[in-house]
């Protein structure tokens, strides 16, 4: 199960598991994002490489206008995935508690 929506403060809230079966839903939402946003992963348990593709495509599009995504509250598993992917160098990523 995966859910994505705008929170009251404008953050993008992701909940559940972002696997290959959920990427169409995630990409459809992200395609509507047109400015810099914070993405809150507090309740995102899991991401696969297909989910990374959604984030990368969005980041590249936003970068064309000088904007980008900041990802906060990533758990240890997702942090490892970002680190092994080199995503920690192309996204602003903040661990829990910062």
């Amino acid at each position: 199960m995966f859910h994505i929506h705008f929170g009251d403060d404008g953050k993008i809230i992701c909940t559940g598991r972002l696997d290959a079966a959920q990427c169409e839903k995630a990409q459809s939402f992200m395609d509507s994002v047109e400015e810099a946003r914070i993405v809150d992963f507090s309740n995102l348990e899991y991401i696969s490489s297909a989910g990374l593709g959604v984030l990368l495509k969005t980041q590249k599009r936003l970068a064309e206008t000088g904007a980008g995504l900041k990802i906060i509250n990533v758990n240890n598993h997702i942090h490892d995935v970002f680190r092994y992917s080199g995503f920690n160098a192309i996204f602003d990523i903040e661990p829990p508690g910062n």
Partner: protein
Amino acid sequence: MQKNFNRSYASLEEIFEFTDRFFATEDIEESIRLPVHFVMEELFTNMVKYNPENSNDILLNVDSANGTVTVTLTDYDVDAFDVTAARNVNINAPLERREPGGLGLHLIQKMVDTLEYDYADRKSTVTFTKRPG
């Protein structure tokens, strides 16, 4: 513990549930649950993506010994595709030179303790292990 799964991304939820039941039954350390899910998804979706016309199910076998989990995926009537071959992925490339895709096999090689590929009689078998800690 083994089960056949339909060759579809829609099978992922069922695969994760199947694996979680095994983890609970065998009292496997929680820290390796998500990495095992990750590697299973990457291998399974790879099999789906590159053989979409194949109607055969994909067989998943999960086993454990001394806390180490061994997972085997078997795909029937397919061309060879060695998932253990080195991947030319530049994870240090700047954003403008990055493109979606191509990271999956690189990532699984980072996450597993062992990864083996066997191909015979048009049958692909991929086995990986993940140790706790």
